[in-house]
């Protein structure tokens, strides 16, 4: 069992700190408190990074800054036995800067900094460098399933090495270059108004976002705020398969009668849906909602962080920080669909 002890997040919602939370999420209210997209993109407002020496900070790609910045509060005074990061487009901006050098200088003498910082595993490795952490270190780049695989790997590590603790997270950056590719490939709308109206569009495409959400996990329940009870990842375009898999997932992890007051067997208390305004993805999300007890509230979050490969990490952070925790224990189901073909379920049990 994967227990979550602490969380940290840098997102496009800097004002999402204690207090203003519930209004942002409760079914539609609180639009005014959420930061909207700027020029069609949900960008992180970067903090000052006081914990990172300027000499180190200067060279980092945005994804590395976000990852290290979010990691700092978690690795201070903690024994960490490994770092597992999911990223879909981390380092892309630096990579393309290097690409521009190749073209501009016709493969002549090139400065290597962009190349080194553009590699996706620079996030996990720089966190390791910052914390002098020599343990397990891995990076998953399978688009919308990178964060989930970091969680799966951490759950195995905990089982193999009792008593160990890991930093697990999802980090992605919006880069101008990558944005153009995704836009040309039809993944973004060109104009969107801020907030919940994202979900009112009946058109393809979502809106780009970015962020870093990290979690300190272990196999010990003491001091844990929640546990990941189940994770499933799969590929496909058939809605019926998604529904069948969801039913089986819930039956496996939430058998009938296991929930106080649940009306339907296998229903969580809350469904965090990765709906993103793309009308091609909506049928999948609706089909999953239809599997659940109609009384289960549906909470959407991509109007706060935008769409990016590891947005499910933001969702888990958001749920732990800002969903009113009653009654306990509270089971929260996450379903995310990435680019129509990648699917993931996460079941979280919250204790506090």
């Amino acid at each position, binding site marked *: 069992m994967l227990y979550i002890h602490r969380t940290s997040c840098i997102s496009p919602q800097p004002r999402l700190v204690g207090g203003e939370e519930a209004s942002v999420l409760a079914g539609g209210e609180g639009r005014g408190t959420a930061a909207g997209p700027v020029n069609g993109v949900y960008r992180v407002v970067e903090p000052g990074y006081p914990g990172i020496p*300027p*000499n180190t900070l*200067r*060279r980092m790609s945005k994804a590395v800054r976000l990852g290290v910045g979010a990691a700092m509060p978690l690795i201070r005074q903690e024994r960490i036995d490994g770092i597992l990061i999911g990223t879909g487009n981390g380092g892309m901006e630096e990579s393309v800067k290097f690409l521009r050098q190749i073209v501009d200088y016709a493969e002549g*003498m090139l*400065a*290597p*900094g962009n190349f080194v910082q553009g590699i996706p595993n620079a996030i996990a490795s720089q966190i390791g460098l910052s914390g002098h952490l020599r343990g397990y270190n891995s990076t998953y780049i399978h688009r919308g399933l990178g964060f989930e695989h970091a969680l799966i790997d951490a759950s195995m590590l905990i089982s193999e090495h009792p008593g160990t603790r890991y930093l697990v997270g999802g980090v992605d950056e919006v880069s101008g270059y990558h944005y153009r590719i995704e836009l040309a490939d039809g993944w973004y709308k060109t104009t969107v108004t801020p907030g919940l109206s994202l979900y009112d569009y009946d058109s393809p495409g979502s809106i780009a976002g970015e962020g870093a959400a990290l979690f300190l996990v272990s196999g010990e329940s003491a001091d844990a705020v929640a546990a990941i009870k189940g994770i499933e990842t799969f590929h496909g375009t058939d809605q019926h398969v998604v529904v069948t898999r969801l039913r089986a997932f819930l039956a496996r992890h939430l058998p009938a009668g296991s929930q106080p007051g649940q009306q339907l067997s296998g229903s969580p208390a809350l469904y965090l849906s990765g709906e993103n305004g793309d009308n091609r993805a909506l049928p999948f999300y609706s089909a999953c909602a239809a599997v659940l007890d109609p009384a289960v509230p549906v909470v959407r979050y991509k109007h706060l962080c935008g769409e990016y490969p590891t947005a499910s990490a933001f969702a888990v952070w958001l749920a732990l920080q800002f969903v009113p925790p009653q009654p306990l224990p509270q089971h929260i189901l996450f379903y995310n669909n990435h680019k129509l073909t990648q699917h993931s379920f996460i079941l979280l049990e919250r204790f506090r």
Partner: protein
Amino acid sequence: METAQLKERLKAQIIEFLNLSSTTPADIADDQPLFGEGLGLDSIDSLELIVLLNREYGIVIKDPKEGRKVLVDVNTMVDYITQHRTK
């Protein structure tokens, strides 16, 4: 170009090229070691400085070992530029 002017120009170029955004030219003494305890640059920076010398002054340093002799401090760099620049 006067040596003093070249030193100032070089310091500004180093700051920009290596993205030392919290440093000003006044912070870099002419004889302050670039690596180790001084400015705290590392091996990637030394490769980047070699590229800087190439792009701004047309200098080609092929051997990193030769580079280490040149990239000691601003003084040694300016001496080398003065002798070898082609731009």
